[in-house]
């Protein structure tokens, strides 16, 4: 159970407070409701590039990191398809420095040309390091546009191509900031040995006067139902063939998400998962094989991917995956196996409540989905899933016409 209180400032900033008096560290998490799904198809990778620019100095503070480090704090951030999330931890006696820093970059940025020039390079190097100069690193660059034809999930957060980042201009940066970086488009969570009164007064002091509103409506094209199997074959200089299969499924807020997520656990959570124990250990068709759901705010994907053992053909590999999928569609999962994946959810939840930073991040994310209180009901949602829910979910998701396959061939 994670208890919290919430209030909203008059400028629309939503604030959540969680008290944990067992730690000298306070976590602050600020989630901006903007991700790569909000990008212009011709300027992808922008939300993530922008995340880098948020460290390039704000209107009154030339450097973000230095004062935070001076106060014994540490921070980082990440961007995904739906959100851009900034987080920090700091000794509780220096918490006000966090309010000072975060409120200033919500107030306005310095927009330094130098910072833009440098961070464009840094992000292009990140693109190379993690996607292009990495065996199998570009698989998702290929899989996304195969699975999504209309919805912006068709490009990854890093962007479609480094040239999009190289071409980013200062005017784009400013427009993006004006539209999305506003108190009413943000959720702040403070977790640690704090009380709500104190956080309310600090929030009013530092964030209360930020008076700007970039009201916008998010109008994203819905991905139409897929009505035919899709296959892409690609050849790369890698040592082994790899396969990626993706099926469309519901969004994170749909109650059908829970059985779908448990299906992925039955296939591949822990070493006793069906894919690992049957296809990796027993049949030795793959050196690794995983199933997972993307869990996005809009309709997401159910993914199975793995690397084939040397000498195994794509046909054999797909047949074996197909067999495991068809079992899920036909045979009810045994009570013990279902209980196993439910126990795992409960255990993961308990471990995730150890650190204030994890709690702050999770609260912010559930608030983004609609209500932070969901965090305390998640385990119940999973626990009430039945074997027949799993059959329904499996039959809904795993049709051939709903499937995109990427054969990533070694040459």
């Amino acid at each position, binding site marked *: 159970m994670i208890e919290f209180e919430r209030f909203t400032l008059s400028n629309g900033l939503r604030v959540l407070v969680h008290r944990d008096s*067992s*730690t*000298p*560290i306070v976590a602050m998490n600020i989630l901006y409701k903007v991700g790569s799904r909000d990008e212009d198809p011709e300027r992808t990778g922008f939300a993530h590039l922008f995340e880098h620019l948020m460290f390039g100095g704000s*209107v*009154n503070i030339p450097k973000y*990191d*230095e*004062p935070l*480090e*001076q*106060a*014994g*704090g*540490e921070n980082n951030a990440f961007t995904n398809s739906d959100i851009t999330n900034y987080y920090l*931890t700091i*000794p509780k*006696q*220096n918490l006000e420095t966090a*309010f*000072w820093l975060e*409120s200033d970059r919500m107030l306005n940025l310095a927009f330094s040309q130098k910072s833009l*020039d*440098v961070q*464009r*390079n*840094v992000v292009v*190097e*990140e693109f*190379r*390091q*993690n996607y292009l*100069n*990495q*065996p*199998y690193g570009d698989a998702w660059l290929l899989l996304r546009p195969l699975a999504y034809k209309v919805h912006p999930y068709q490009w990854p957060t890093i962007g479609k191509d480094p040239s999009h980042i190289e071409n980013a201009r200062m005017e784009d940066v400013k427009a993006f900031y004006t539209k999305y970086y506003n108190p009413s488009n943000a959720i702040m969570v403070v977790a640690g040995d704090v009380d709500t009164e104190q956080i309310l007064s600090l929030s009013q002091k530092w964030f209360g006067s930020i008076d700007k509103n970039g009201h916008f409506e998010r109008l994203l094209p819905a991905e139409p139902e897929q009505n035919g199997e899709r296959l892409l074959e690609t050849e790369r*200089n*890698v*040592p*082994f063939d790899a396969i990626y299969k993706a099926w469309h499924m519901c969004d994170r807020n749909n109650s059908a998400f829970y059985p779908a997520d448990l299906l992925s656990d039955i296939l591949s*959570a822990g*070493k*006793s998962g069906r894919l690992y*124990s049957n296809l990796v*250990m027993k049949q*030795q068709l793959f*050196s690794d094989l995983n199933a997972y759901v993307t869990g996005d705010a809009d309709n997401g994907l159910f993914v199975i991917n793995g*690397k084939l053992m*040397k000498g195994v053909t794509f046909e054999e590999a797909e047949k074996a995956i197909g067999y495991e999928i068809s079992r899920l569609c036909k045979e009810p999962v045994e009570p*013990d196996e279902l209980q*196993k994946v439910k*126990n*795992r959810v*409960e*255990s993961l939840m*308990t*471990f995730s*409540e*150890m*650190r204030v930073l994890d709690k702050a991040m999770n609260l912010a994310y559930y608030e983004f989905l609609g209500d932070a209180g969901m965090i305390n009901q998640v385990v119940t949602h999973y626990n009430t899933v039945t074997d027949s829910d799993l059959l329904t979910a499996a039959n809904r998701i795993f049709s051939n016409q709903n499937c995109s396959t990427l054969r990533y061939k070694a040459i």
Partner: protein
Amino acid sequence: MLNRNSQPAIHTLDQISIMEPEKYTLDNGIDVYQFDSGTQDLLMIELIFKAGTWQQEEPFSALGTNLMLREGTKALTSQQISEKLDYYGAHLETSVEKDHAFVTLFTLNKHLTETLTVLEDIIKNASFPEQECSVIIGKQRQTLAINMQKVSYLARTRFTSLLFGRQHPYGQTIQPEDLEINDTDQFARFHRLYYHAANCRMLVAGKIPAGFQMLLQQHFGGNDWLRELQPEVHFAAAPSAEKEIFIQKDDALQSAIRMGREMFNRNHPDFIAMHFLNTLLGGYFGSRLMSNLREDKGFTYGIGSGIVPFDHSGFFFISAEVGSQVTRQAVQEIENELNKLCSEDVNEKELELVRNYLQGSFLRSIDGPFALADRYRDVLLSGYDMNYYNQMLEIERNITPRQLRELAARYLNPKEMYLLIAGKQA
């Protein structure tokens, strides 16, 4: 009027209280170090064996044995072990370093009896079945082949062999031919020699339930797995005569750079001050290397430096992946930063920044039971207790610019370092 131009007052952390573990000894002599702390009903139970690559005679013995502990016992198959652990929501991690091997169980307290039974069985009765061994080795072969396509992997592994020599345990890395293994009995042999009570210590952290010590005694405190300690072995390092190495990889978009040298471990009186100096150079986001090569020049997504202490030695390294076209400039800038450290005093402002950062970072690093255990493991394996960190904080508070410059001149002269680049020849 709100003053947004100046930072709110900073309070320095004068008193950091560091929890010492409770220590006790099981009947067979195993020392247990236990942190009773945390808010959740869960535990981490770790067994530490002197069973690293230092102890092995064949190149894959230490890692192979460790990986295959969970692949079957006299009573349970690999599948049954996984089923049981997963059913109870437990998580088992195994790892091998140069000097030690670790087996760590993360479990909810309410399932402790069941999960501890599995852990005991794995540790004492691992049977290394032929079929599972061959699958695990096959998987390793594929993983290695993929890693060998990564410039970062090539640079990292080759680098230590320059410093210590390919035959030395600290310089040796697994080669594809090492995984053509006929003799699978080596794992059972290694297990018998090194995974036993006399060679074991235990580290426990979390909310300790009543009767826990007795439970540990029942599972791990008997003489049934007490065997004789192996004599200590010694190796002499054979550093490469060549100081600069280039590994060609034609399709690379980036070059991996590694620069560094052999360095002392925690037992050396300069270690803590060197840790401070390393932080300033490349150990945090605002470090000189990051500020210069990333935030000023945009050469790289990330650059860092570190000191890796081993039982018998250690090394210092700088590492980055940089755009192929700027490789030479990047190396030059790294050398400039090292030379600057050797010749110029750090100013008070930067000194204070690093000092405050380190103190905050230390406070974070002892936050929560698992974090405490991590910090304790570091010093335990070097022969210290938590008091080591009090000395560390004291040294950090009093360190001077002159001390840092002298240390740099003694240990961080770029002319005395090895340089390795893996990538496309520009």
